[in-house]
């Protein structure tokens, strides 16, 4: 099959950037989307042209490195899949595909489709952990945890930190990402001790990084490749209120 690409090219953060057209032919529908870009890049390289900068690592939907805005949707057309899990069989022969980077003030473009998401690390640094030093832990079974709580915590903890929720949100809010961590830790007894500081500090860091506020449009949940639920934002809101009253 054959596709026509419109790819965002931007040399660096200062460059205003533009779309450039490419045609890719001879595609096997079983190729992954990123493999299609590999093929294009190797062609560009052989011709002495600058390949399209994009990032990926695990290529199986778990590391959160990849992240392209494809035809107006973060991670492309498939529900609950990352960019690296999209295959060419999900496109039509002859289709035009528009590829852009995540767009958010807090995620500045490094080159072409690669953005800087270190803001997420700083949000975690603000409180996305349980303070326990190596060696301090009691026996693993000393704290039984109801299966239901453990599995809800787990579901929240499967966030891969990709940033699609931010890219999907008209306010470029990182609320789903923050809520996932607040809920993961807050639903476990070990995480209750620091619950109050956690929610306040993480939210304040989110704001400092330049992410917008949450207006509950739900666009994040719809585009999250891991199906992180809005329930987590509701949980965060409860934590926030609790934190405020306990002042």
């Amino acid at each position: 099959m054959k596709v026509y690409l419109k790819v965002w090219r931007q040399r660096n953060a200062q460059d205003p950037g533009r779309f450039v057209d490419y045609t890719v032919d001879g595609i096997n529908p079983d190729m992954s989307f990123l493999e299609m870009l590999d093929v294009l890049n190797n062609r560009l390289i052989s011709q002495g042209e600058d390949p399209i900068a994009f990032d990926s690592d695990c290529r199986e939907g778990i590391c959160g490195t990849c992240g392209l805005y494809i035809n107006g949707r973060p991670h492309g057309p498939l529900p609950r899949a990352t960019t690296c899990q999209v295959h060419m069989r999900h496109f039509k022969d002859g289709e035009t595909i528009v590829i852009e980077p995540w767009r958010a003030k807090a995620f500045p473009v490094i080159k072409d489709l690669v953005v800087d998401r270190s803001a997420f690390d700083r949000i975690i640094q603000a409180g996305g952990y349980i303070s326990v030093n190596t060696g301090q832990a009691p026996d693993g079974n000393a704290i039984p945890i109801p299966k239901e709580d453990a599995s809800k915590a787990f579901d929240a903890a499967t966030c891969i930190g990709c940033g699609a929720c931010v890219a999907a949100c008209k306010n470029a809010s990182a609320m789903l990402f923050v809520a996932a961590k607040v809920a993961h830790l807050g639903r476990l007894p070990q995480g209750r001790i620091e619950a109050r500081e956690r929610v306040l500090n993480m939210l304040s860091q989110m704001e400092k990084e330049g992410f917008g506020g949450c207006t509950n449009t739900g666009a994040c949940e719809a585009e999250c490749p891991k199906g992180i639920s809005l329930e987590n934002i509701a949980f965060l809101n409860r934590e926030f209120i609790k934190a405020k009253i306990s002042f």
Partner: protein
Amino acid sequence: MTLYSISDKKLDGKCPTGPIEKRWTQHKASLRLVSPANKRRLDVIVVGTGLAGSSAAASLAELGYNVKVFCYQDSARRAHSIAAQGGINAAKNYMNDGDSVFRLFYDTVKGGDYRARESNVYRLAEVSANIIDQCVAQGVPFAREYGGYLDNRSFGGVQVSRTFYAKGQTGQQLLLGAYQALMRQVARGQAVLYSSHEMLDLVVIDGKARGIIARNLITGELERHGAHAVVLCTGGYGNVFFLSTNAKNSNATAIWRAHRRGAFFGNPCFTQIHPTCIPVSGDYQSKLTLMSESLRNDGRIWVPKKKDDPRKPTEIPEEERDYYLERRYPAFGNLVPRDVASRAAKERCDAGYGVGPSKMAVYLDFSDAIKRMGRAAIEAKYGNLFEIYQLITDENPYETPMRIYPAVHYTMGGLWVDYNLMSTIPGLFVCGEANFSDHGANRLGASALMQGLADGYFVLPYTIGDYLADDIRTPKIDTRHEAFEEAEKSVNERIEKLLSVRGKTPVDVLHRKLGLTMWDYCGMSRNAEGLKKALQIIDDLEDEFWKDVAVPGTGKEWNRELEKAGRVADFFELARLMCLDALHREESCGGHFREEYQTEDGEALRRDDLFSYVAAWEYTGHRQPPVLHKEDLIFEYCKPTVRSYK
């Protein structure tokens, strides 16, 4: 031409002696300590933020050392460990099924086909239980039973259930625990994080590791970083094969550069080929995807009894299926160790019984398990793996069996370290998959996560103090030292050299050729003739690389092709050493199967009288014959026997 020379001095792993269950405790008591006030004056560089690196960096920072931690991903949380699926072993005996530290130790030594050090493995088993406690305290959401207690499942090569798991995302959850612990130290200012930085050389001053040269991958700047000790936790080198289950960017540059600076390389040819991966579908393929070993708990592996059977798998009746693992290995059945399962799949496919379009695949079938437990139970256990499978292949494994084939997965070899995890360069420590230590010639499932975290949380924080105790009066390492000058210059020259070729062939194309060569001649089975041939092909490919590689752009910007080119250049050199090691080891053991050495029924034939040693290779120059140093392996507790899973 002589391919290598042999040192007549034996290499000493510095293992403690005495009763094995007391060794680590006694050793710890004998290690020197560094006082809190002195720790504040000592700097440690940790390269890598996988399970080994994050756990080491966090633990060292908690102790009060000044830690600098590096990774090439844009966030520490994206290290390759994130992709581990199935689980982590620990001798907790929560299942009351007769597990113990000794049994985990024994299974691991046996699983490794008697090519690992007893002392190290025992320590690993001993600290395994602490790892689970630590992770639970950090909030790692392990699977639980209805009573609220931790659940376990079983993995290959063992007869107890000792594997802790978080659905199919165990690596992710463990790594997030360690990453969060590290972020906490970053927030405290006790650790400084350098993400998007790649270490390109090790700096050695007066024989000691004193720093690294790193490239800022966003700006392209080279940076000098000094420290009193350097810890490499840079993962495995499976990507020498191009196609593997490793993340695309996993590479050997850090350990290879350290090897060139004097660190011996242990057992480079010991590679693990994992039996259950999604088969190759075309020549554009960029990586292979693992289907976790845990699936073999409930999935049954088979091929049709008839060659080239055209029927759909669901139409082939029970009696016309060959459940070849259950047939050949009734005691362990589908749960034989990985090397055994992989070879058995290759044997069936080579004999013409393979399935799927390429005929290089076998079935992994869940229909019996679904009948027995119901679809919901299977979904709860393996849901995300089934989803991954379906996304890639467009087939529904609830309805039709998965098609799987072995793929390169893990490297047991790595930099040689002593019992204290220190390499042959004083002050250079190596943890996790990057070292050669605990898995011998074959790693058991769910043991890499255990080893990475054992090294980082519970071993290195003790042993590094013993080394640093001599350094409390050493001032900050001055990065203006000529050794830094020289190392930076050589890194720069290499980058310039890569950029100046301006050839026509993309890095990937040459890497793929190297990978295919390695897969054909140094993969699941090897022989002397093929290995010699591979050595020749590797030289030719390397020449072609330096004549015709196309690296666009400059060194002063984000340049993925330049990064890849440097890594592949190192892979050529490592590939040569792997083949040489495989050629020299004239026996079959674990993942190293030499066709010349097999039993009548095709099982691996070990030659303990000749090869019961660790092969540690010393670098002597590019394409120069390396020196082989032997560390004898002594088995006092697990007497080597023929490994039988029948």
